[in-house]
């Protein structure tokens, strides 16, 4: 049976259309809200993880490192990477900067203090190393009795050479702490060998003079 067109039908049809249009306009907002809620709940652990990683790795302020060297103030204990003094060996006309730490970066700039060893005046093994083709190429010319001076932020220390040894690169006993103050200067050996060397040349020295309690008992 065919339905006749009436005013009532028109009103009903218009209201249906309005309701349909309402659903259509409402759908994107509803879908966006539902999707955001569902995804936020589902990915909550990953979001937390991402934010904790961001807090851990992101720096608050952009710090740009420069090649300028930080020098330790007189009387202060040197922090890692700081230049804290100079070495002077008149016999071989050597004068070079002393740095705290012995990374390749540091050894590219000067003479590195083995971070695990004592500082001058601390009464144990004080280990410094440098490349044979930068500062320590002439260590082989030193003989017992030669003087080595360390001018540091903790004062001036004078040492006297005791002996020299050629050791294997894996021999760690000469960089271990000692009961008496000892200065150990270390470099690669043979001095003029082309290629990576398997041996090390060390010069050992005893303390002659230096200030007491140089680093403030640190």
């Amino acid at each position, binding site marked *: 049976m065919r339905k006749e067109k009436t005013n009532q039908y028109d009103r009903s049809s218009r209201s249906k259309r309005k309701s349909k249009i309402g659903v259509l306009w409402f*759908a*994107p907002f509803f879908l966006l809200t539902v999707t955001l809620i569902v995804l936020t709940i589902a990915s909550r652990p990953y979001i937390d993880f991402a934010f904790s990683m961001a807090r851990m790795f992101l720096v608050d302020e952009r710090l740009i490192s420069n090649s300028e060297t930080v020098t330790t103030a007189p009387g202060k204990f040197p922090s890692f990477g700081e230049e804290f003094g100079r070495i002077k060996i008149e016999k071989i006309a050597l004068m070079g900067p002393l740095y705290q730490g012995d990374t390749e970066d540091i050894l590219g700039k000067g003479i590195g203090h083995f971070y695990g060893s004592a500082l001058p005046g601390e009464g144990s093994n004080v280990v410094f190393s440098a490349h044979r083709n930068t500062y320590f190429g002439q260590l082989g010319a030193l003989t017992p009795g030669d003087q080595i001076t360390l001018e540091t932020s903790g004062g001036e220390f004078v040492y006297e050479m005791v002996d020299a040894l050629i050791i294997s690169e894996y021999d760690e006993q000469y960089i271990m702490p000692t009961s008496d103050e000892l200065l150990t200067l270390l470099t690669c050996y043979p001095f003029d060998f082309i290629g990576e060397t398997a041996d090390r040349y060390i010069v050992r020295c005893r303390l002659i003079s230096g200030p007491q309690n140089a680093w403030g008992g640190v």
Partner: protein
Amino acid sequence: MTIAKDLLRILISFLLILVLIALQAILFLDAILLNPISYYEYINTPAYYDKLKEQIDFGLEEVGRFTNIPGELLTGAVTDGEIKDYTQTAIKEMIAYLRGDRQDYSLKYDTSAIKAKLETHVKDYAAKNNRPYDEQLAAETQKISNMAGSRIESYAMVIDPALLKQFGADKKIQRVLSKIRIAEAGLVLAMLLLVFLLWLTNKNHRMRTLWWSGSALLVSSIVLLIPGIVIKFMNVAGRVGLTDNYVTWVLERSINTMLMKWNLMQGLFLIIGVLLMLGYVLYRRKQILKSAS
């Protein structure tokens, strides 16, 4: 019945949104993040290349200090053109390897120029010391040129391939990335199926499919734009590192560029979604005007 139909349409649209989110993310990964062209520009940017060259020179001087070779001999044997060519090829090969298109990454820097200069130097050294250029010196020369080559190889790539291989991460990445194309195809099929279902549920008003599909695309794009905007707002790129070296430089620029491309891509999809919806509105308006006249 009408409410049930609307609920069904909303449910299908919601599923379509999830499919579109995955598809849009994978498309970005495939077409932009894993596209070597995205990274080529850096090599020719002086601000980046100067930093990279500085790092390579430092690495070669370091090799020199360890092996008793003048650093300038090694740095002088490497030309800008060679570094740029190698870096570009390395990026291409690395991405192909990570995507599983290559079975292995074995690209090596051609050290013949370095070796030739080294040989001359070592022969001079041998002559000065009254000794022949024997097998031992030849072996040391080869070893030093290999060391120099591996330094260049590791600095040219921000991601060290050797490091990836050490932890087996390369195979894990390959397993995921080699399935990108299959995943894309699967998601496109799922998308078409869901649009078809929307079309079926709107059998009296086929054009309404445009509205529902457009809404889904609009929502998925907004959802994907949110993390892009948050990361941009957090200034992640500017806070990636403590030092201003070539790695942080390229990371900072890459993050910024990728974020911009991500936001642009999602913005483009958003516009398409809005156009689909607008298409339906115009069509409906035309229909109403036609029936009124």
